[in-house]
């Protein structure tokens, strides 16, 4: 495959940030189809429009997801990318790898693909970018037999779940997000690989309210770690912050002179619930008032730790704006024990209850958050058999248009207008 002139893309080789153009050129030495990637993208830069066609149903036998079909609309000019399907490979929880594993994946992609990847796709999968239909089955065979890896999800199914690195390296993890993510990914392989839902469904697991995987913004089922007892305080370390011996926020602000650390200004006054105060040198927290926002803990990681009675809050129904507007996930289950001993049965039970209902009432291409919007949160809570609590709302409704039901009203809805008229003339 010949090299194409790419004057526009060459401009993206300049500057301090790593250049994908330079990288693709380097790969072209052993994977000449990379010249055609550059050639077609250059044409897009010239025409200011994409040159990929609207997909195509491709995949491996028995799976309804994991491969995204893609064809060039200028295949004669760029035969190396005429077919350019994507292979999604499920990532290990927390995205840790060994060099040996990565090299094996690279070798596989040297053999069967373009040599280009996305590390990672926005869902979390490793994305191998660009192969042909005939390569799919042999690739899948070697992937499963030799690499012990599997495809991720795409289409109207459970998408590859993703988690934060949790307990493996974060002191704030309130549950083992990796264990839960790994367990559910394996438990629901069928749901990942064979679309049976009204639309896509995503799990994301963040082990504390900092929510590093953005679960509350982009997953239908967001499991976010929390605690229900008292923030653990080390008063000597609090003092070390006040005395300026430890940098605030783990050193996150050390690039600018923000002045001497001021615990009142930086912690106590920024606490959204105003539940902290100093008594002499002692930091006090009225833990019953704390909403576990994480701010004070973020600022003084050596002095403060999440409480010891840990679990997760589960929020349901986030989605990007398409179509009715963006939704964050709604707090549904305030505190759930995340227990590997019972194979996470409390979580599994909730997931399946949501699916059973959504698969029945969800319309085609309706995310569960939209279904909840359509029927209303009260209906959803009833279906989930969750007791309504003030925590489910930011504030009570401001209209009085309550849907009372027949059973709720004394005497029911059935009445006799003739009886009524005897007492109230028309």
């Amino acid at each position, binding site marked *: 495959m010949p090299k194409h002139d790419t004057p526009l893309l060459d401009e993206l080789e300049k500057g301090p940030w790593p250049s994908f153009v330079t990288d693709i050129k380097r790969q072209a030495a052993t994977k000449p189809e990379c010249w055609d990637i550059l050639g077609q993208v250059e044409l897009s*830069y010239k025409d200011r429009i994409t040159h990929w066609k609207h997909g195509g149903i491709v995949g491996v036998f028995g799976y309804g997801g994991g491969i995204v079909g893609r064809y060039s609309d200028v295949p004669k000019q760029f035969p190396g990318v005429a077919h350019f399907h994507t292979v999604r490979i499920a990532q290990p929880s927390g995205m840790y790898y060994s060099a040996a594993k990565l090299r094996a994946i690279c070798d596989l992609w040297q053999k069967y693909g373009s040599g280009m990847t996305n590390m990672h796709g926005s869902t979390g999968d490793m994305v191998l970018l660009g192969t042909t239909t005939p390569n799919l089955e042999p690739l899948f065979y070697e992937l499963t037999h030799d690499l012990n890896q599997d495809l991720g999800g795409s289409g109207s199914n459970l998408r590859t779940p993703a988690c934060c690195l949790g307990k493996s390296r974060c002191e704030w993890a309130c549950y083992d997000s990796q264990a839960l993510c790994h367990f559910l990914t394996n438990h629901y392989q069928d749901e990942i690989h064979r679309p049976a839902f009204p639309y896509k469904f995503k799990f994301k697991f963040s082990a504390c309210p900092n929510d590093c995987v953005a679960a509350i913004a982009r997953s239908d089922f967001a499991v976010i770690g929390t605690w229900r007892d008292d923030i653990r305080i080390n008063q000597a370390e609090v003092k070390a912050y006040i005395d300026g011996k430890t940098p605030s926020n783990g050193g996150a602000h050390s690039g600018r002179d923000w002045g001497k650390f001021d615990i009142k200004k930086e912690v106590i006054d920024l606490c959204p619930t105003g539940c902290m105060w100093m008594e002499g040198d002692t930091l006090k927290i009225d833990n019953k008032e704390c909403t576990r926002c994480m701010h004070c803990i973020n600022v003084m990681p050596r002095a403060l730790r999440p409480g010891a009675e840990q679990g997760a809050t589960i929020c349901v129904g986030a989605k990007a704006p398409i179509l009715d507007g963006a939704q964050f996930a709604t707090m549904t289950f305030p505190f759930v024990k995340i227990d590997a001993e019972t194979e996470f049965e409390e979580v599994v039970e909730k997931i399946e209850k949501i699916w059973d209902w959504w698969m029945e009432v969800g319309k085609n291409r309706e995310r569960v958050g939209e279904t909840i919007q359509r029927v209303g949160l009260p209906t959803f809570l009833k279906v989930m058999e969750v007791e309504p609590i003030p925590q489910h709302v930011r504030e009570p409704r401001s209209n009085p248009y309550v849907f009372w039901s027949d059973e709720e009203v004394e005497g029911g809805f059935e009445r006799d207008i003739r009886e009524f008229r005897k007492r109230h003339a028309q």
Partner: protein
Amino acid sequence: MGYDPANPMQDRITDIGPPHYEQFFPAVIKKNFGKWLYHEITQPGVLMHKAESGDECWTVRVGAARLISIDHIREICDIADAHCDGFVRWTTRNNVEFMVDSKAKVQPLLDDLASRGNKFPVGATGASVSNIVHTQGWVHCHTPATDASGVVKAVMDELFDYFTSMTLPAQVRVALACCLNMCGAVHASDIAILGVHRKPPMIDHDAISGLCELPLAISACPLGAVKPIKATNSAGQEVKSVKVNADRCMFCGNCYTMCPAMPLADPEGDGIAILVGGKVSNSRSMPKFSKLVIPFLPNNTPRWPETVAAVKNILEVYAKDARKYERIGEWAERIGWEKFFEKTGIPFTIKSIDDYRLAYDTWRTSTQFKFTSHIK
């Protein structure tokens, strides 16, 4: 035995899921799993995590393009082999993390990374601009209104010093999605760069019958702008097709998703909108959506100077004006959005006033406001 094309179902292995993560843990991570006490960022891009055992895990975080070659991954493996017992991880923001078990091993690792040109910039910790999460753009997708990798490269070149330092009031998360589908879920980012179309779909009457199920194309439109009609194709035959009521169209591209005979991409029509002030963490304030402040910037290839300048301007005005810990959205809410527009010099246009569903939530129903230059 390898794959046998004549017998594709033989010895088939399916549904094995990802390998267990624990086998990929560096020793210090495995040993101290769940027993971390605290962390400290000792310099931009270098994190030290202290365990109850007294062990330390030192992490060096480096930026990367999301679109990377296998040769680049192999180079990452070489570095992991040389310094990290052959282990490495990625973050959700496309950064790569090299972990070692003592401080003494950090400098040799940093030196090695620095010796490899600009491939491994160290940073993305604390009050910095971390890597941009983004989608496919012209490198792979069929619906984009802008490119992804190129815009990201141009913006990161300009914000590079903020990646490698920690001088901002708080972390700033930038995200890009190349069309309104927002695969990258940019709707809760401090600064979101979003590809938008501005011309309604064209209808390919020659192709529509072969490519599309008309009822699906019609019901795809959230605004009911797609209607069935009888049209004439270029061969002069009457075909069942659709038309689009342009006054109703909000250029979402949902019809094109359902029906490839309704393309809406256009070199002049397509470009970028900028949204700001979203966050996902619960820290201090609740999660927030990003808000549209610049409705359109052109696709000026190859380096999108207007977009780069707009992002940098917002970032730098915020950096100067916000208080320590304040995210962009928290800052804008404290000073008021009218002040945000005044301070950034971004012209306020009618396009920032919501007229879609649930719009009323964003209108001001109070006599509280500030007298900015907008009030003549």
